[in-house]
């Protein structure tokens, strides 16, 4: 089992993986969830946001950039900054969360669903046409931005991770945990924020 190490500069743990997602709740709005696992899949930290709802003006003014703003900057950046552990890289399951990469130094990889059969050799395109570097680790299919050096960094880190590690499954845990937290805390206590 991989020993957890302390980064002498940041004092944060390495050899961990981050999983970031946003749950769109029909009634309450968007909940962000961030789970940090060790390399055996055990939870180290979990952070979740109160629900957030962009108002009408924001929807008009931000236009197509609203999702990346809410997902990446408001939710993603906030959650990653809250975490104590510094993961090897952060996995996301929604393209809009890629925007978080502009605000953090940690590499970010979009985990593609198993049934997504866009099989261009090394290239994956988002819905808006943005090209991504596409690669595979075990049965996991990943896509990273072409701009940063994330592909090289993530590939190096993945070498330390068992190929059997399922990078899709932890998102289900986050969704279940958000659901549980939302039920337990109730929207009243957290309130419904606005973007």
């Amino acid at each position, binding site marked *: 089992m991989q020993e957890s190490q302390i980064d002498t500069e940041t004092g944060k743990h390495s050899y961990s993986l981050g999983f970031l997602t946003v749950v769109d709740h029909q009634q309450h709005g968007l909940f962000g969830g961030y789970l940090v696992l060790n390399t*055996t899949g055990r939870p180290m*930290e979990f952070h979740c946001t109160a629900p957030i709802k962009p108002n009408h003006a924001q929807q008009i003014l931000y236009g197509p950039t609203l999702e990346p703003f809410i997902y990446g*900057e408001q939710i993603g950046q906030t959650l990653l900054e809250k975490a104590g552990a510094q993961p090897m890289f952060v996995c996301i399951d929604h393209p809009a969360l890629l925007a978080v990469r502009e605000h953090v130094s940690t590499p970010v990889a979009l985990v593609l669903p198993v049934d997504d059969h866009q099989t261009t050799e090394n290239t994956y395109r988002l819905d808006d046409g943005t090209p991504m570097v596409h690669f595979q680790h075990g049965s996991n299919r990943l896509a990273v931005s072409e701009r940063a050096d994330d592909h090289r960094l993530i590939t190096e880190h993945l070498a330390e991770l068992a190929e059997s590690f399922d990078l899709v499954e932890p998102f289900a845990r986050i969704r279940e945990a958000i659901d549980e937290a939302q039920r337990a805390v109730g929207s009243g206590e957290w309130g419904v*924020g606005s973007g």
Partner: protein
Amino acid sequence: MPPYTTNFVSFEHNDNSAISWHAPPRPIVTSVDTIELGTCSPHVISIPITKANLHVRSFTFGESAKVAEVAENKIASPSKPLQAAHQVAGSTRIHPPADVIKLDDRLEYLLQPSLESLLAERSLAFPSRPFPFQFEGIAFLYPRHAAVLADEMGLGKTMQAITAVRLLLRRGDVKTVLLVCPKPLVTNWQREFNLWAPEIPVAVIQGDQPKRLWQWQLPDAAVRIANYELLCRDRDVFEYLGDDGRPSVRFDLVVLDESQRIKNLDGTTNHVARSISRRRSWAITGTPVENSTDDLVGIFEFLAPGFLSPEMKPLSMGRMVSDHVLRRTKEQVLADLPPKLFREAEMDLTPQQRESYRLAEDDGVLRLTELGDSASIGHVFELVLRLKQICNFDPATGDSSKLERLTADLEEIAVSGRKAIVFSQWVDTLKRLAGRLQQFGPLEYHGRIPHRQRETVIEQFRNDPSRHVLLMSYGAGGVGLNLQFANYVFLFDRWWNPAVEDQATGRAHRIGVDGPVTVTRVLMLETIEERIDRILQEKRELFDVIFSGAESHRKLGLTQQELFGLFQLKCPADPIAVAA
């Protein structure tokens, strides 16, 4: 803008004349309109685009990994090569029990990887791949401090309990486990532990009293197995206090197998089980309710004292225990398990049996009538047993319709190379059958067979092709045995409650059975057996109400009126206990 004027010139024209003109000087007049445009200052509306201050809740789970490492170092690795656990696919989630209230604790369960991953992480290998429902059972037991695994017999309760214990031990969540089972099953549990958790050290509490005292107080034994009788005999050790003022014999987990043994709330076994100092309590039984809801109350007094009360209605009791009891039937989880086929072998007594039966019943009823209000439940039972024995064999001639039918069926079974188990509640009946079924190589398994020989009997029945029939008593053979190589079960006489009969048939109809199991329920028409059969049906109703949540309007259990009603007698005024 300055105003200005313009002169307009007028002309005169006359024919034949020279044009003359004059242009009197006139000032030009220009009219001016002035339009005031004014100045415009637009109104500005600002929409602030600020980053909202998001509320974030944070949870950290740092300790479990450390604990796991410590525990891992204390337990040796498996010595024999087994199928790698990481090959076990699946995603069985461990959900927090309802009594885990704190959000942090609930999330810690929810955010754990799947059970299969946890097992793979600990390198917990299996001799064969468990069924998905068995993973569900392990995931049910693992987080619970009070749990009843009540699967129908044959679904692998033993394996599920052992794997849950193994995971708890390997993760360091528990360090000492006591498993209590009926005496004949001790070797079975030992064998199963060796199979499913070979790296876990298991000690059996046995021997003389000083030795047992030493065994009880062993500090490092991970799993200890004791039988119920020994538990009661050694009850004092649970009251010893150590230097710290706490019980010197205490466990992190106590598992009661065949936990119906503590169903009697006032019984010694129940009291002793409850006196054991422990943090977690599990009960394993295929029959959490044998007779009445009181059985479940007895078990829950061990699991969670005061959680249930005898006054509760079955339906509400079912709701109360729903998070603590896991009950699956073969029909629910093993769609591809060969079916269990029931045959009602209804037949008439031979003329000699009928005459003996009539005389005995008339005589018995007469005696009960004479006793009047002083007639007790014991008197009724005495008569019932007498009549049931006559249904088996005529006491004077040895005639038996049942034997004739059984012999005919066994001939067919033996010819096809199959094996059968015959259950009776009486050892004398079994011995009589052994004498009359010699051509089928009968083997006996009952209370008069010493425990040390019983394993040999089972092995012989399993491996010797000339041994076609095993004669078993409900008491000795009803629980814990794996006899899935027998395809036929005969209930030569009927037990008082259906749960015990189900246990008996479940010996053969379980995982690993290679074909349908035919259960023949022998019933003599117009006898006490027919009347008892109706009561057994009602008891099945009770079980269904508690564990399926279904409403039932049928009368539950065996009442005083019903017992005396077997003989059309008026019952005494005092209430009596439910039949065992």
